[in-house]
């Protein structure tokens, strides 16, 4: 099944964050908490699936020479949709993600998939690729956000408030835990992501 392969490709083998090293800005900026990473990932996934589908449908209509501006118009339209929906339904998350919601337009994953995949293959495969890449980006951001939040604050309180998950806290496990605040500050973003990519390399022996 081609579409299934295309879908799983983005999840692991060509994970945009851990393998392709694309879309670094949002991955570093919004992952101060697991829930922010999840929100950013899902918003990007929506834009990726929609833009891949539309661009794939239009691939025979768009002239070769002006394809990049055409792609950008399609992508920024869907980003505007996401922006307005988030503003209306999840104003808190919209406030936290701030400037990085309009900046989904210049997330290089989206333009890269449009150029490398959706401009060449049929609709079903392109949508599957968009979904796989988007969810691959989502789990990477959520994992990074969770790691930073747990080490930096000692708990996952933001996710608890959102979903009513069982309250998780390092204090409960170890009795006392001094949060390493650095991981939720700017330098921690770079260092944690670097260590995480290194760990992925180590686990998969794929240097």
């Amino acid at each position: 099944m081609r579409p299934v392969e295309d879908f799983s490709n983005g999840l692991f083998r060509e994970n945009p964050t851990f393998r392709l090293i694309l879309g670094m800005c949002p991955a570093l900026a919004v992952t101060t908490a697991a829930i922010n990473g999840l929100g950013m990932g899902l918003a990007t996934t929506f834009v990726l699936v929609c833009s891949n589908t539309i661009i794939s449908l239009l691939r025979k209509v768009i002239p070769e020479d002006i394809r990049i501006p055409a792609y950008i118009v399609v992508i920024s339209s869907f980003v505007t949709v996401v922006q307005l929906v988030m503003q209306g339904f999840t104003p808190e998350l919209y406030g936290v993600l701030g400037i990085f919601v309009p900046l989904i337009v210049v997330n290089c994953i989206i333009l890269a998939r449009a150029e490398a995949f959706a401009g060449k293959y049929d609709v079903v495969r392109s949508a599957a690729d968009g979904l796989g890449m988007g969810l691959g980006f989502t789990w990477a951001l959520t994992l990074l956000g969770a790691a930073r939040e747990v080490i930096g604050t000692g708990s996952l309180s933001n996710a608890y408030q959102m979903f009513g998950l069982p309250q998780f806290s390092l204090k409960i496990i170890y009795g006392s835990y001094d949060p390493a605040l650095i991981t939720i500050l700017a330098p921690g973003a770079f260092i944690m992501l670097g260590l995480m990519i290194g760990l992925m390399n180590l686990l998969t022996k794929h240097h």
Partner: protein
Amino acid sequence: MDIREIMIVIIGAVLINNYVLQRFLGCCPYLGVSKQLETSLGMGMAVIFVMAIASAFTWIVQYYILLPLNLIFLQTIAFILVIAALVQFVELVIRKSSPVLYQALGIYLPLITTNCAVLGVAVINIRAGYSFLLSLVNGTAAAIGFTLAITLMAGIRERIELSDVPPALRGAPITLITAGLLSLAFFGFAGMVK
């Protein structure tokens, strides 16, 4: 216009809230084009050029087109189109007018459309409510900050090439960790301006 206010914006954008190291804008070129000192300087110059012009144009678009026509919801689309068109235009003008400059900056210009620092600074200018002059100053200063960060990084990476890095950390991971340490160093500037 108060000169003090301008200085605060400049120091803020270059050092305190460095666009790459503190605000995470423009990370892709920062990690991708910082292998050599020379190329990263070229990239930095191109970014300064485009970001200054883009700040000015997006400000005009916002206050003379989008606001009077009540089209604020089109901001993202309008800004990215203005930036894409500007980059193409700048490329054309430089190619015609200054072949020397084109040779130095040419290959970097198309990459800049997807540099999120350019769209980022345009949106930040509007959200911060800067005047036209302050937007221009902020755009230029942010780009200078980007150039400073990428040049520092390239210098460090040229040395990392020669050192013995654990295999799993080679490439992107060690670059990210280095960026983290640089970012930590830039924390020292916090509190310079109250």
